[in-house]
């Protein structure tokens, strides 16, 4: 296709996933019915890549999205038949491993020849460790070296440019580690329309569209329904969204007809504001996005047109998420029911606090919640209207040492038989704390690389 043909067409980009464990079937539906040019899977929350790094330390072949094979067995045959290219950060802590597994699947399904690109370069652990005394934590301004605990990962949010590079080299499937979530969607737009990497307004328009779908079904009726106030038809069969992007940056967000959910001004506005701070200055690796002049128009059933996005020059530095093992969290829950249940739960809290003291349990922080009363909003909860019929008492404590977290959980467990009357059997868990902190590094610290596999 030549440049002028490209300019006149509409690019269709689907959102097939928005977190590591996201559902598999909707992406297959998109691949089958949406006539997509690109299918994007976003699967990395702040901590996901650090967890993947821990997996990879245990098993060098692991560390990429656990559902990669399920997703590709479902969608790849349709993508191959229709020429739909795939862009995804499912590579997580091991993009090369993800690409190799993808090649196996392509061969097994006899879909070749196809080119699979692994994008490397987001892993900046060595750089961060070497500069730990000068890199400042965005959370508190102190140096990275002030953190107590073992640093296990450091990944920079790379921009669309690295994926554009892979697409320009003919990749049918691009698998990355950490990149900006929206950049996954922006890369195909830049590649197909030839947008300049310093045309801030057009990149801003692209990112507004990307922001609309980077949380997948959150724009098409997911996380929206509130019966009697905000109705969502057939939420069970929720359809995932896709974008229709024109070369001038006008974008329509829509979904496959016949699927459940809905797309209207209300769903789009909720999603647009979700996880942004200053709407005039939303920082992405590619462009600083200005949402303040965005308008949303319902132009058809489940079709909203997005206009008015703008942009400002991209940041000089890139954000890095640093994963650090900081200690342990012990957690346990027990439920009381019937008349007087709240008083029995309160007595149980007293008992556990006393026993933690007797046992000399060393906790950095202890939290006690009454589920059904105030667990989510604490003292800001609306007052109870009478006594609840049942209440779940929950303890969670953070400790430097594992044994203290275990001890907390055990003191709750032994409430059965050694605490107040008439409870459920408690549940308990003990898990390691993998905390995430952020630092900024210069772009010059990044050396990205595209490794191409041919299946």
């Amino acid at each position, binding site marked *: 296709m030549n440049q002028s043909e490209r300019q006149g067409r509409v690019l269709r980009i689907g959102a097939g996933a928005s977190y590591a464990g996201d559902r598999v079937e909707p992406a297959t539906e998109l691949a089958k019915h949406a006539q997509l040019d690109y299918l994007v899977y976003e699967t990395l929350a702040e*901590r996901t890549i650090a967890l993947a790094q821990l997996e990879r330390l245990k098993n060098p072949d692991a560390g990429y999205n656990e559902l990669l094979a399920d997703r590709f067995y479902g969608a790849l045959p349709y993508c191959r038949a229709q020429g739909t290219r795939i862009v995804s950060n499912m590579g997580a802590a091991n993009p090369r491993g993800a690409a190799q597994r993808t090649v196996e699947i392509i061969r097994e399904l006899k879909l070749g020849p196809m080119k699979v690109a692994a994008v490397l370069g987001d892993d900046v652990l060595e750089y961060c460790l070497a500069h730990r005394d000068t890199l400042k934590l965005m959370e508190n301004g102190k140096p990275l070296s002030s953190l107590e605990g073992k640093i296990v990962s450091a990944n920079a949010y790379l921009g669309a440019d690295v994926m554009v590079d892979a697409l320009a080299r003919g990749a049918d499937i691009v698998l990355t580690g950490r990149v900006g979530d929206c950049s996954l969607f922006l890369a195909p737009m830049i590649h197909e329309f030839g947008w300049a990497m310093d045309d801030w307004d057009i990149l801003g328009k692209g990112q507004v569209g990307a922001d609309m779908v980077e949380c997948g079904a959150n724009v098409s009726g997911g996380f929206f329904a509130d019966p009697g106030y905000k109705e969502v038809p057939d939420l069970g069969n929720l359809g995932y969204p896709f974008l229709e992007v024109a070369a001038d940056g006008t974008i329509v967000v829509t979904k496959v007809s016949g699927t459940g959910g809905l797309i209207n001004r209300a769903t789009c506005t909720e999603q647009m504001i979700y996880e942004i701070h200053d709407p005039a200055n939303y920082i992405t690796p590619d462009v600083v996005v200005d949402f303040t002049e*965005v308008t949303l128009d319902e132009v058809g059933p489940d079709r909203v047109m997005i206009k008015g996005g703008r942009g400002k020059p991209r940041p000089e530095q890139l954000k890095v998420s640093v994963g650090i093992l900081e200690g342990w969290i012990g957690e346990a829950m027990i439920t009381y029911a019937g008349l007087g249940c709240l008083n029995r739960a309160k007595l149980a809290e007293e008992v556990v606090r006393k026993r933690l003291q007797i046992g000399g349990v060393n906790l950095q*922080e202890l939290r006690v919640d009454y589920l059904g009363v105030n667990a989510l909003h604490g003292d*800001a909860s609306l007052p109870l209207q009478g006594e609840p019929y049942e209440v779940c008492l*929950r303890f969670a404590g953070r400790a430097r040492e594992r044994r203290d977290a275990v001890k907390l959980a055990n003191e709750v467990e032994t409430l059965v038989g050694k605490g107040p009357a008439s409870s459920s059997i408690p549940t308990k868990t003990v898990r390691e704390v993998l905390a*995430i902190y952020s630092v900024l590094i210069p772009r010059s610290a990044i050396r990205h690389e595209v490794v191409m596999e041919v299946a």
Partner: protein
Amino acid sequence: MKTLKTFYLRELAHARSGDKGDTNNVGLIAYEPHYYPLLVQQVTVERVKAHFGTIVKGAATRYEMPRVHALNFVLEGALGGGVTRSLSIDPHGKSYSALILTLPMAVPEDIAAELMQRGRKPIPW
């Protein structure tokens, strides 16, 4: 002066909240464009911070988005030390959208009549 009735904010607006580190943001969107001035006037950053009790440990900022009839509240230190370290069962603060909607709002008579016609009721106190 117009008579005022008190309704929960839920009758006038919908909301979604999300996380970044130890910061939560709550987007608040008027159901109708003519409700937006009420939000701007009454859902002040001071009121929201007070309404959230001990949840917000840091600064709170409000951004106005008149084109889409929405306000965005950025609440720092509101996620128990950060999503990845928090002891809360809602470490992301995704339920904070429901908390902001429990804010009582003084609603002028014409809008109150509109709400009641739709079956919405004032707070019974």
